[in-house]
């Protein structure tokens, strides 16, 4: 467990450095002035929190600055952190359902958000926690998506159900559920094809997969997680809104936070839709998927390193 926390820290450390390192340590011990306030504003917008949250944080900082001109960068960071803490309250996802049969997690999202990689990483993670995992390659559209998941499952010794390119995704999902039952697996992860949220027919296909899976267990898929690329801007809110409307999401996974992007869109999504965030992805290695915690995220964004648990 210690190793994992360390990993979380190092993944986020890079994010922190580039986030506020670039603007000359504005969240340091120096007192703020007009110039650094502007740099601060730029950094806040640069985090993709969305106009609403960025403005809210900025307003609170400005108010405090008006009252006390000796406001330091780190005080501003505390203000920003407290706004985010308020906005993100209750956003940490926890798996709670205990179905009789296999528990089903369905991953969905737009093209290239990282669903297949996340499927593999999730499988690896839960298998490590002692669950009996089965993966299902329901992306039958993209060329070689099957092969991609197969290679991952070989590499990580995960059990997989896959069909041919062009097969019906819903029937793959149905077969996978049956396979999970007969093989005594208690966790089934469905990888679906990427689809843009504004395409009605592709969204309808998701509905079909769900209906078909539900023939086995009326509550399945128990979890419908949207996989969001952390470097995407405001459109990720639009994505979440559309997917949520179409099939009622139960969670989010934010990927690709190993770059310099801060995945601030998760703030916007949670703010509007209240969908909990389960995991954040930091890289290409199987272990680079970590549970989301508000404190870790805020610490990373505002450079409050001391708050990260050792």
């Amino acid at each position, binding site marked *: 467990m210690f190793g994992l926390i360390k990993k979380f820290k190092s993944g986020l450390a890079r994010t922190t450095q580039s986030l506020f390192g670039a603007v000359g340590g504005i969240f340091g011990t120096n007192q703020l002035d007009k110039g650094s306030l502007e740099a601060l504003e730029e950094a806040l917008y640069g985090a993709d929190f969305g106009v609403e949250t960025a403005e809210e944080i900025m307003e609170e900082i400005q108010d405090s600055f008006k009252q006390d001109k000796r406001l330091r960068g780190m005080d501003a960071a505390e203000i920003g952190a407290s706004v985010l803490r308020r906005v993100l309250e209750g956003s940490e996802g926890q798996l709670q359902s205990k179905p009789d049969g296999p528990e089903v997690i369905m991953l969905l999202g737009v093209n290239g958000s990282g669903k297949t990689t996340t499927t593999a990483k999730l499988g690896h993670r839960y298998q490590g926690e002692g669950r009996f995992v089965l993966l299902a390659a329901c992306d039958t559209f993209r060329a*070689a998506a099957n092969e991609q998941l197969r290679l991952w499952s070989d590499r990580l010794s995960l059990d997989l159900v896959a069909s041919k390119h062009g097969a019906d995704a819903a029937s793959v999902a149905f077969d996978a559920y049956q396979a999970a039952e007969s093989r005594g697996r208690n966790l089934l992860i469905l990888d679906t094809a990427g689809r843009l949220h504004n395409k009605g027919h592709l969204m309808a296909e998701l509905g079909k997969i769900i209906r078909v899976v539900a023939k086995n267990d009326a509550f399945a898929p128990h979890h419908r997680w949207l996989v969001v690329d952390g470097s995407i*801007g405001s459109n990720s809110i639009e994505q979440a809104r559309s997917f949520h409307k179409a099939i009622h999401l139960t969670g989010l996974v934010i990927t*690709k936070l190993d770059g310099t992007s801060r995945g601030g869109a998760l703030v916007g999504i949670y703010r509007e839709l209240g969908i909990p965030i389960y995991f954040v992805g930091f890289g290409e290695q199987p272990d680079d998927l970590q549970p989301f915690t508000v404190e870790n995220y805020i610490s990373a964004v505002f450079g409050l390193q001391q708050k990260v648990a050792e």
Partner: protein
Amino acid sequence: MFDNLTEKIGKTIRNLRGVGKLSEENMGEALKEVRTALLSADVHFKVAKQFVEQVKETCIGQEVLSSVTPGQQVVKIINDELVKLLGEGTAELSENRPLKIMMIGLHGAGKTTSTAKLSRHLKKRGLTTLVVGCDVYRPAAIDQLETLANQEELLFYADRNSKDVPSIGMKAVRHANEQQASAILFDTAGRLQIDQDLVGELKRLNDTVMPDEILLVTDSALGQEAVNVASHFHEEVGLTGIILTKLDGDARGGAALSMKSITEVPIKFAGTGEKMDDFEVFHPDRMASRILGMGDVVSLVEHAQDKIDQDEAERMAEKMRKADFDLNDFLSQIRQVKKLGPLDKVMGMMPGMTGMEVGDKETRQMAQTEAIILSMTTKERTKPGIINGSRRVRIANGSGTQVSDVNALLKQFNQMKKMMKMMRGGKMKRLQKMMGKKGGGMSGFPGAMPGGF
């Protein structure tokens, strides 16, 4: 959402009429709206600021025109500036043969798909294209490229036993010469712009194969990060162009403006759909209206021209002019609209319609109308007047609808016909008045269109 910038800006400077000149003072609020619009379209903070300054300079001192509202005037200036900025630089690819293109970008940007799409684009222009699988990291990436290459009948090269990308590149060039290929596309692995090892690999590939074009493939929905991505890659390997992907999504695409203004690298192509021919040369004007949230009228028109049968359209226009329009024509019109693609896609391109809910309901409605007409006899279709009560019941049963649905359709049809008669009688004014009063529906569109374009 920020649907109509013209309207918003119009509100802030409505009181400008008669003022005479645009000035820093009376423009203040409007420019703030522009900034917010750009920021919420994911334009980078600095770029937005710079752009607003630029617009301010252009605007200040201009006479307020009497022919358009000040709002329209300002939006026109913004639009022109945007088009200019987005369109600078050439979109043409190098003339060198064999044309060597290196495709690079972040994970999941769409490099492999874009490689196949661009190859297809070049092939259509007479080039013999070879694609090279240089993504040695992502599982099955090479398989994906090979599948697409087979599907598009492209030449393909890969070495699955090697992880040495520069040497794969070199062997591929040799292979291309043997095959007499006139274009070689290198599909590289997704990588972070700050990953020194992997960026180093790109540089080595660059030094080995010396590509004529280095194209950065980016998701059009990219956030503030776009600037970092583009400028880092540009510094490291020197980009010659940008390909924007997933433009068929509904992202406003401010990233395009950010990347363009920071790096000055031209945007060359755009990926616009799941199919291999959903790939086009970049249109700065369309991107500008998209960033401003004003829809994509030009695309819609072109799309329509592409799909609608010209003769049929002319025949229809003639019929409308003569008000000699029956249910058969109505049916063929529905089918024309259907050819344009899913309704939501069509509506998404219309100004003022972005974010409007056109979903399955409308699409279903259209299918229902079609079914009802198909359940009519030929005679009924040409002479709807004869459709009495019992015929209505039969039609409803035949099409699986209710009599009320049939009634609604006939009523709608009669209204249309009435309008056509008015047009024919040269009573356009009366018609406009009527449409204006009714609002909603198609009649709402012209009003939403920004003037002066």
